[in-house]
């Protein structure tokens, strides 16, 4: 990559990283117990436990989940060559909800399925549901070659899973409230193990995407041009779709369904810098992490000591940003 290209992305990366660190520090300091001074906490066991065991992992977890969603969003927009693509396109959101619904319905049922589900936990159920839905989409579309077919299959899987989830709620209406809680999103239940897991998946998916980004660059010139350049388009597209599913499934499993981060993060990055796909994916991850961090801190502070579900905040913030973009486009008369 030319020096100028890497120079374009670097200042933004550094800025985003610093902002993330700043917001993480703020996030660690605020919560329902109020502002906790680090120095005071050193001496108080309970305060220390609150900071170390609760606030730090959930704040870093918010960053990791947001970064996973931002990365998945950038991948989705590159693979589908559509700026309106988001990571939930291939049915992962509905699949996660269905998995969680199954878990709620069978909890305490005394069935064998229930014991397995208790072992896997809600998180596992959501992850299996999300990745399972994407695999089902790939199966229905018979591969990744035709993006239109893939998109249609994703819509079908999403709708069918949604209907199945509604059926589950009909059978067990008392699980409905639990389901809503999951759907609205929260970092409240993220501990250290969840945090490490998300960071691990983030590093893996980021590395994979960076390494394969040359294919996405070729793809940005058009499908036939990419093919003519001899890049292994089909294999890489499949790998990247799976990486997208892994990243989305992991994020959704731990923090619920958070709207707009995957859609908006790449857009914001592109409006600031123009970079190649490799840098775009990494910068989108950083941006997504920052966005969810801000949403999480706001969610904890706005109605303290009660917590707003972060899904509500990201919907407001994301929707607001898209509205602003829409207006700006109309005044500029360009698209």
């Amino acid at each position, binding site marked *: *990559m*030319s020096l*100028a*290209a890497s120079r374009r992305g670097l200042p933004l990366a550094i800025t985003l990283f610093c902002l993330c660190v700043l917001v993480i520090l703020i996030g660690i300091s605020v919560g329902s117990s109020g502002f906790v001074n680090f120095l005071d906490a050193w001496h108080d066991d309970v305060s220390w436990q609150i900071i170390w065991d609760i606030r730090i992992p959930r704040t870093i977890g918010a960053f990791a989940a947001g970064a996973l969603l931002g990365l998945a969003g950038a991948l989705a927009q590159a693979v589908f*060559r559509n700026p309106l693509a988001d990571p939930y396109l291939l049915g992962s959101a509905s699949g996660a909800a269905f998995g969680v619904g199954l878990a709620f319905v069978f909890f305490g049922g005394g069935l064998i399925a229930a014991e397995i589900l208790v072992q896997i936990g809600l998180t596992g159920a959501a992850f299996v549901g999300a990745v399972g839905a994407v695999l089902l989409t790939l199966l229905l579309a018979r591969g990744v070659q035709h993006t239109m077919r893939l998109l249609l299959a994703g819509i079908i899987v999403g709708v069918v899973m949604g209907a199945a989830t509604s059926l589950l709620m009909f059978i067990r209406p008392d699980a409905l409230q639990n389901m809503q809680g999951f759907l609205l999103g929260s970092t409240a239940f993220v501990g250290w193990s969840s945090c490490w897991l998300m960071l691990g998946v983030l590093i893996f998916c980021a590395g994979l995407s960076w*390494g394969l980004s*040359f294919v996405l*660059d*070729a793809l*940005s*010139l*058009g*499908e*036939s*041009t990419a*093919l*003519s*350049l*001899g*890049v*292994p388009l089909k294999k890489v597209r499949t790998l990247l779709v799976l990486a997208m599913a892994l990243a989305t499934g992991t994020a959704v499993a731990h923090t619920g369904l958070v709207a707009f981060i995957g859609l908006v993060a790449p857009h914001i990055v*592109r409006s600031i810098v*123009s*970079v*190649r796909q490799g840098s*775009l994916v990494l910068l989108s991850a950083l941006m997504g992490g920052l966005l969810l961090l801000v949403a999480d801190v706001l969610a904890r502070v706005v109605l303290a000591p009660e917590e707003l579900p972060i899904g509500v905040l990201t919907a407001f913030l994301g929707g607001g940003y898209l509205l602003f973009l829409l207006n700006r486009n109309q005044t500029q008369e360009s698209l």
Partner: protein
Amino acid sequence: MATALQARNVRISLGAQDVLKGIDLDIHAGRWVTIVGPNGAGKSTLLKVLAGLLKAQGEVFLFGKSLSNLHPRLRAQQLSWLGQNEIASDDLSVWDVVMLGRLPHQNWLAGYSDADIQAVEMALKATHTLNWREKLLGHLSAGERQRVLLARAMAVEAPLILMDEPLTNLDPPHQVDWLEQVRCLTAQNKTVISVLHEVGMALYSDDVVVMQEGLVVHQGGCSDQTSHRAIENVFENRIAIQYILGRWIAVPVLH
């Protein structure tokens, strides 16, 4: 003369329609060949099949080797493609776009070599786009963009280049530039196959392939009278090919 590209009984149906109904072609190395014909004759489809972008029945041979057996990377090193109407991302710089043309020669994660830099610079110079190397594709006009995409195709340094409507959006001076670039390429013994709907420009090429309704009706030199008659024929004699000012040109026939 060596044969760059050979097609034997190529057939393809897209959907319910038979687009190519049995094509036989011989294209010699170091020549510039243009495929002409009315709309819907199957020109672009044929070019895509020759480039290996569409799977068809029959055989295509690239420098003697069967295209279907060729590894995509080897094929990409020997065959360069410039497509029509392909939406390119606005976020790439001119340098990045043209450097992508070096992908068939680059190793994964190895970055680019001096040879790559040289090839890119030469391609930029040839298309007079060297000054724009840091500009973003989205900031160029359609014609300027087309020249950059051509530079990308040239950067591959493949012995065979296929171009589908390469003159789109180019103004006359740059169309002339393009002609000169093609002449340069053939002088280096590279083979160029283009699909052009501008018959006048097509007449500058060495050979012409005349198509109609999925079949090749004529293949021959551009100065041959038989070729001229064939061209006039497929266009229902609405054009006439005349020798004016030392050149063959096509003029519309008005009644």
